[in-house]
């Protein structure tokens, strides 16, 4: 990628913002319909304490949900890899959970799980766990057959084959799934917050967005939205960096650990 290509998205974004600001100013669009970028920044600055506290609340749900999704996806993938019966039993239900919109089941979960944070985490986990599950399962199934033969020839136990061959071979798949799950966990958290907010709970960013909508504080709404978008990008980038770091370090240690 050349430097020009690297700079292109930023330049394009800045150009867009300039045009936006100019259009809003020249056409006298009222702020309660479409605020300009400067009004949005001002709205953020005026209310940054409340917005950042809400962001932290959303982030906490996202982080716990991501951890839960990673563990749940990994455990289910292992079960599916270990037994064909388990695979047959789990796979259709994983798909059912994946295709059911979380907005539709969130009200039920919020009624059943009588603690707001836990209910939000459950919703976000349901959205986020599928890519971890399907990627890890694909990785565990993609063990090179010749290496599996080699392990068999040398009398490897199932445990040895799992830990020395199948899991390490599935690691890149798992990490790719985790990267997708990170942004999905954020999406799931916000969607669940919207549902919960209508029931009176409103500590996350979704609560701020709804609240701004009711009060016609559109600039504040945009500020919250922008915050969400930036957070999503940062989560994606951070998990991408984590993935590269692990894959680069992996195997560089002493042979006893590496193989």
């Amino acid at each position, binding site marked *: 990628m050349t430097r020009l290509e690297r700079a292109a998205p930023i330049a394009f974004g800045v150009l867009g913002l300039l045009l936006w600001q100019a259009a809003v100013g020249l056409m006298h669009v009222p702020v309660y319909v479409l605020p300009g970028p400067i009004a949005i920044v001002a709205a953020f600055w005026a209310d940054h304490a409340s917005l950042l506290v809400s962001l932290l609340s959303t982030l906490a749900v996202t982080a716990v949900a991501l951890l839960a999704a990673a563990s749940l996806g990994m455990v289910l993938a292992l079960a599916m890899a270990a037994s064909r019966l388990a695979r047959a039993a789990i796979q259709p239900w994983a798909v059912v959970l994946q295709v059911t919109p979380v907005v539709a089941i969130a009200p039920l979960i919020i009624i059943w799980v009588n603690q707001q944070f836990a209910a939000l985490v459950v919703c976000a986990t349901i959205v986020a766990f599928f890519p971890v599950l399907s990627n890890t399962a694909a990785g565990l199934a993609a063990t*090179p057959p*010749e*290496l599996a*033969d*080699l*392990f*068999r*020839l*040398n*009398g*490897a136990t199932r445990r*040895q084959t799992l830990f*020395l*061959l199948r899991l*390490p071979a599935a*690691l890149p798949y798992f990490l790719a799934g985790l990267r997708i799950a990170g942004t999905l966990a954020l999406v799931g958290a916000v969607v669940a917050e919207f549902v919960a907010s209508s029931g009176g709970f409103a500590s996350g960013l979704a609560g701020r967005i709804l609240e701004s909508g009711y009060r016609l504080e559109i600039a504040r709404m945009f500020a919250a939205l922008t915050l969400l978008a930036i957070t999503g990008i940062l989560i994606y980038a951070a998990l991408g960096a984590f993935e590269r770091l692990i894959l680069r370090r*992996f*195997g*560089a240690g*002493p*042979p*006893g650990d*590496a*193989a």
Partner: protein
Amino acid sequence: MLRLNGVGRRFANNVTALENITTRIEPGAFVVLLGPSGCGKSTLLRILAGLDAPDTGSLTWDDHAPPGPGDIGFVFQDATLLPWASAEANVFLPLRLAGQSFETARPVVRDSLARLGLAGFEQARPAALSGGMRMRVSIARALVSRPKLLLMDEPFAALDEFTRHRLQDDLYALWREARTTIVFVTHSIYEAAYLASRIIVMSPRPGRIAAELTCGLPDTNNRRTDPAYAALTTQVTETLRAVMPA
């Protein structure tokens, strides 16, 4: 070493891969299975390894005990190394699976790498090695458990001519020194003639033994230019021409 008694293998799609293979692998022999693609050479090698079972016939081992873990070394056409592990860790793998600690195994692992000319590359990971060096690691791994039988499935087919010649020379030298029994699959007449103490020529589908040639090339350092080598390749070529369908 072992005897094959009328070994046959038919796959589920009704393709007969092998039919009535009866021969003997003598201890210390360098047996080359030579034949065109699809003649069942690799299937036969997998049966010898115990990775596949014959539908008819049987294998009889000389000491009546089937080989245990580590008794058979297998080298695949690709190096099939663990990409995340160093050369050393890859060679250590068979011993690790047998329950050895790396501290105990280190001298054997180092020795095996050194024999294949890989001293100084212990920490290199497969991605940092050339195709020929990866194959050397693979052979070092197959030899590290001091197997009674070394099975090689077209190990040099994917390498360039120069690398292939060097690896053939080194493999031959290793065999001459240790006299490990080797069964080597190839579709190259020249490779077969250069390495083998006996060549088993196989006919295509169903795979049968079409001819067996005992080779006795002189143990000189320039076998490749020896007239006896040229004569042997001619003999093998003529045998193949006689058994192949037009």
